[in-house]
């Protein structure tokens, strides 16, 4: 039964008491009906050539990184790799719009964003290789650990940005999440806290169409994920996630807004996961080749390359140069990843507590004895 069918519903009017008033006019908070685009539009002409060239180089490198990491999975060098092929524009733009003092909060698919921010490619893969959970010092790089539980890193981003603002520091946090993650409670709580506290945070939703196998239509009934922003009192922006210039522009504006005290923004980038969820997934069970092919035609590298070529900002040599640089990166990565990780089993007990408990000291002694016995056995 709908509200209209309820007896007396027609005469029902909610009359708020005098003190009630809406916090903001919701109209400016609503996203555009169509994803914002730059490439192939008049807006592209005004876009800084240096930024476009930088984006292109990073996209090409990122695509090669994804391919190399996927190959390493097949060789057993990585336990798993959730590829962001097709989504590189989001990954790269997220990294490039941040200042050095800003923080990035990536999800498990966002290795590329961390690498584009300057993280050592091998350190970025530690989690996925399986030698430790996080291979880098988050404070040194201002990149939070790659987060596997969905959306739980979003409240961390809010808390960190809030803390930085309390201290008077100029810090913006950019938190990344997928379309599936927007259904989680932590997504809601993070957005609500961010808006109430007016924290300098940007939420980037990479809507790549599927949460493993579940399509967006079964994930949400909202007109777009960007629409979710309005209920929290923050602007929602809808952007073509394969248009690197558009993502860069929308995120830059959101970051600038956060930096000047304007509060959080929710950005939905509409993109597509060209590869399967991970190597353990069979994507043919839930989507057809035609759909994937259509998205391949709307490829972020192709879109940008066309723009650069038409405007004479890149020639064949430039394209080849970018490809060669990417190939060199892949070769270095391959070489370094083919060396076995050096592990110390005693590390198991080292970082559980600041000071080891008596219980852990006992267990460490037990493992030490087992290792010594193993070593002795090897010698015999």
């Amino acid at each position, binding site marked *: 039964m709908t509200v209209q069918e309820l007896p007396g519903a027609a005469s029902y009017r909610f009359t708020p008491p005098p003190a009630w008033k809406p916090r903001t006019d919701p109209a400016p908070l609503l996203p555009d009906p169509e994803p914002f685009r730059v490439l192939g539009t008049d807006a592209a002409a005004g876009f800084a050539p240096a930024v476009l060239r930088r984006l292109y180089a990073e996209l090409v490198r990122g695509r090669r990184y994804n391919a190399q990491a996927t190959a390493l999975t097949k060789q057993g060098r990585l336990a798993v790799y959730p590829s962001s092929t097709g989504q590189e524009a989001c990954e790269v733009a997220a990294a490039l719009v941040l200042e050095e003092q800003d923080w990035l909060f990536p999800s498990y698919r966002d290795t590329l964003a961390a690498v584009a921010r300057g993280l050592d490619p091998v350190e970025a893969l530690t989690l996925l290789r399986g030698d430790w959970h996080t291979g880098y*010092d988050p404070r040194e790089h201002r990149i939070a*650990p790659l987060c596997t539980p969905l959306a739980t890193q*979003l409240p961390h981003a809010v808390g960190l940005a809030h803390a930085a603002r309390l201290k008077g520091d100029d810090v913006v946090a950019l938190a990344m999440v997928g379309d599936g993650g927007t259904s989680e409670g932590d997504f809601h709580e993070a957005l609500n806290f961010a808006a109430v506290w007016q924290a300098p945070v940007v939420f980037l939703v990479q809507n790549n169409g599927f949460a493993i196998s579940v399509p967006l239509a079964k994930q949400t009934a909202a007109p777009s994920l960007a629409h979710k922003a309005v209920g929290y009192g923050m602007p929602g922006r809808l952007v073509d996630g394969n248009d690197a210039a558009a993502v860069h522009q929308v995120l830059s504006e959101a970051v600038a807004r956060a930096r000047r005290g304007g509060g959080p923004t929710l950005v939905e980038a509409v993109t597509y996961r060209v590869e399967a969820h991970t190597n353990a997934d069979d994507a043919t069970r839930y989507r057809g080749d035609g759909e994937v092919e259509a998205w391949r035609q709307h490829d972020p590298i192709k879109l940008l390359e066309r723009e650069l070529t038409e405007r004479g900002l890149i020639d064949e040599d430039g394209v080849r140069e970018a490809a060669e640089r990417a190939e060199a990166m892949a070769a270095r990565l391959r070489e370094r990843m083919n060396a076995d990780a050096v592990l110390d089993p005693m590390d198991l007990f080292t*970082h559980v507590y600041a000071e080891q408990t008596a219980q852990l000291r006992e267990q460490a002694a037990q493992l030490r004895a087992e290792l010594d016995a193993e070593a002795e056995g090897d010698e015999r």
Partner: protein
Amino acid sequence: MTTVAAKPATAAKPATMAQALQRAMRDAMAEDPTVHVMGEDVGTLGGVFRVTDGLAKEFGDDRCTDTPLAEAGILGTAVGMAMYGLRPVVEMQFDAFAYPAFEQMVSHVSRMRNRTRGAMPMPLVVRVPYGGGIGGVEHHSDSSEAYYMATPGLHVVTPATVADAYGLLRAAIASDDPVVFLEPKRLYWSKSDWSPDAPTAVEPIGRAVVRRTGRSATLITYGPSLPVCMEAAEAARAEGWDLEVVDLRSLVPFDDETVCASVRRTGRAVVVHESTGFAGPGAEIAARVTERCFHHLEAPVLRVAGFDIPYPPPMLERHHLPGVDRILDAVARLQWEAGS
């Protein structure tokens, strides 16, 4: 390591546990500007138990913050604040209200140090008013300590005296690791000779204490069950039993040394807690004691725990909570098992 901070020696006034906890936060906030108190109703109202009373007024809304009503959000944002170098002290209003935050607790709070190889410690305190005996309705009286104890990376402490409430909370806030600070809510208004005006000691986390010496058997307990055990020990004298009472204070890390030294002296042990018995804290404690003291034991280690039921409605809770009689019955069974 027991440090004593000198306070102006004015007329000593007895204080409640709630006041001692409030004083601990106030002192910590005054000494360290990175200490932030946050939670639902902790500001203007001073908390539903008034434990944070006056902190917002004294330190401002930014240091003592009324958050939106969302436990995962409260703990999740506290994680981010700790990542930036603050020391959040989070209040979960009631034991069962903390469950939405459990994912943050297990997936992030407890393991952030470990997953970052020590690069990113989590110096935060989660204060959880817990346990029954106050006539609370459903979801207001759970004893959730076993869940936290089973999560590596967390410290789990629970004071039973007013002095410990101050001393342990100061230590918890000073700790570089996350501490789940379980406050026995039925002891919030218990008074003692501890005074906020007198010198106050900071108690190190991880040390149990013998509250009463005896020779017949050891009662191993903590938090809300300590006063019950002390009463049982007094009553046991009429039966000719001289009971020792050990207050654990810290469930993680566990003080095997103090507990086992006591059991070796007495040869008998009963673990007493409100939490359910099956897979409860007592199961772990009994196993540890048996493993370490088997040849000193004259009887099996017994447990007097809450029944294995969802926490009952308030009009029935007295049947669920371990009381003096149930403890004395267990002690009697120890005598029988020993053949005496």
